[in-house]
């Protein structure tokens, strides 16, 4: 608990664990607030991360925190620049584990091209049944280029719908770890910057971008359909799902359409750019399994559906409840 008191123990913790990992001139000044260069169209986001376990196949809460934050900025076409991070440490958290997480946070921040310019640390008591937990809160700031108008209401009838890769990996990895199920499913936790910059640089007419997180692809598309007043129509055959994840879902009674990712985006682009957009995504580090998965129509504004493998029509709504495995 002494680490949270603001005294010697606190400054030692900050110096040894955080400052070393996040080393940059702004943070190095150790002022109360960071004053940084900016530009006219600022994108701001905030997020909190409470995932358990703290480390999982394919990532950890630190990497997740950076990716989750920068990806939200990127989905508005903003170039992420700055991050803040607040760490709430629960008494009992092992310093070695904290160091690994902070190092991972720093490394991911470097990969994503963002600077950590402000931070805070608190320590709270552990309850009898649990201790050693960690919560991270972030804020992210980025800048939107002039003329860029990517948003949820931008989809138009005729547009193509793409996804940058396999569905459900993160959710399946976390659930596998929690249930002690042996497989090689990894979280796909990743920053989407390379893909977004590539789409914009290649002059793809991008109307909407969304990262596919909690609630899954179906939830995202239903929300876009409502905001844009269009119909989102998907082809089940075109949906990219890793074979292991598919089997895992089959066993657990889960649906990849409703499972979260942490490193995939949905892009709604002008029809004539569909094939090129797919190629651009596939050429990026995290876009290997990118696919065109459907189209936007004006059939029934605010609805989303999927053409099933046998040509049936399944209406998609947002996720109800928690997506728990069923009884029998």
């Amino acid at each position: 608990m002494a680490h949270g008191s603001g005294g010697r123990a606190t400054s030692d913790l900050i110096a040894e664990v955080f400052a070393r990992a996040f080393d940059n001139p702004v943070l190095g000044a150790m002022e109360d607030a960071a004053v940084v260069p900016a530009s006219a169209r600022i994108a701001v986001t905030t997020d909190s991360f409470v995932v358990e376990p703290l480390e999982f196949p394919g990532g950890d809460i630190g990497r997740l925190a950076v990716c989750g934050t920068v990806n939200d900025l990127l989905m508005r076409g903003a170039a992420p620049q700055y991050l803040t991070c607040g760490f709430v440490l629960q008494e009992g958290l092992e310093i070695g584990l904290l160091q690994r997480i902070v190092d991972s946070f720093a490394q991911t921040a470097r990969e994503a091209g963002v600077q950590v310019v402000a931070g805070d640390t608190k320590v709270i008591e552990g309850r009898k049944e649990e201790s050693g937990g960690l919560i991270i809160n972030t804020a992210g700031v980025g800048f939107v280029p002039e003329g860029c108008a990517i948003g949820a209401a931008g989809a138009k009838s005729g547009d193509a719908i793409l996804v940058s890769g396999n569905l459900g990996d993160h959710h399946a990895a976390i659930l596998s770890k929690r249930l002690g199920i042996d497989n090689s499913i990894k979280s796909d936790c990743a920053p989407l910057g390379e893909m977004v910059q590539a789409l914009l640089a290649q002059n793809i007419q991008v109307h909407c971008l969304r990262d596919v997180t909690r609630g899954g692809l179906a939830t995202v598309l239903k929300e876009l359909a409502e905001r844009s007043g269009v119909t989102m129509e998907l082809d089940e055959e075109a949906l990219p799902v890793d074979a292991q994840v598919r089997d895992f879902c089959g066993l657990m009674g889960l649906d990849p359409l409703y499972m979260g990712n942490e490193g995939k985006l949905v892009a709604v682009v002008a029809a004539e750019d569909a094939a090129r957009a797919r190629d651009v995504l596939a050429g990026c580090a995290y876009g290997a399994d990118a696919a065109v998965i459907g189209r936007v129509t004006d059939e029934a504004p605010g609805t989303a559906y999927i053409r099933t493998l046998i040509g049936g029509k399944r209406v998609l709504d947002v996720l109800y409840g928690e997506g728990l495995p069923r009884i029998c």
Partner: protein
Amino acid sequence: MTDFKIDMDRQITKIKAWLAAYDGPDISIMEVCGSHTAAISKYGISGLLSSRLHLISGPGCPVCVTPTAYIDRLLALSLEPDTTVVTFGDLMRVPGRERSLADARSEGAQVEMVYSPMDILRLAKEQPQRRFVFAAVGFETTTPVYAMLLEQLIEQKIENVQLLTALKTMPEVIAWLCENGSGIDGFLAPGHVAAVTGAKLFEPLAARYQVPFGVAGFEAKELLFAVYGTFRAAVRCREERGCADVKNYYPSVVTHEGNELAQRIVDKYFEVSDAAWRGMGVIPASGRLLRAEYAGFDAGSAPLIQDHKKNQACRCDQVLMGRCLPGECPLFGTVCTPQNPQGACMVSEEGSCHQYLMYHRTR
């Protein structure tokens, strides 16, 4: 009984054409199993049928057919000192006479959710001074797992675990539906139940009531094929007497005899008993209870037969019998939603009402 292994891709176009074009007398097939209702929703199969062909959901959702007395007993147990109720996720939000386990938990009731019954072994060993009561609900598919759990409890000499059972079997409820004028021309038989019991389970029913059965799997094409085959068989049975039989459209998993090991272990620990079904009352010999010599493991399952509606306008009972579509219930989608369920059919993800609402189904 005949097994079907056919090159389905070639047949799919012809099958879909027949289903869409059928304009003979109305035919209703009941899918007894909640997982089939879910699969039919997921693949959009009812949208492929002409308006004369009807798929009706039946009472095959174990959570949905459990009477409120069972939930209320679990609630009472969860509030007893030194007792924890252990259950699957589905049961947490089913309303009893007034409230659910999830509601009670926020008032201090001790309830733990698990994904597998075997998790209770770990819980019981970690806290030997505490009594754990497992909510053992299910059909023939899950009962063997509870039998295996019991075997483990005995072998590992674990003495602080009991079961509150609501175990049911298929044949008697199907017979009840046939005897009580349900208007069903054929049945899509539950594939996972049949994996345990064997497809032979349905032969006496087909013979006695002269309705065809199609044992179906859960993948899109094989399920569509089973639906098609059963509709065609129902059409034929209308015209010809004595042709009703059981066809196995799930031969990769289901055999005629079933899993004899599973059947034996169930018989070892459980005996046939009467059981109460929401909407249908007590159906003789339609359930299972722990045998007398294992009564020490039972938490008082036998008398739990009363059912009370939380909301008098709830029509779950009619929906479970296939007499009312979910959309015909006055509470559907307005008062009764997954966030605020009035009856079990809306809580369980395999409940008919939940399915119809989630997938925006009208048929």
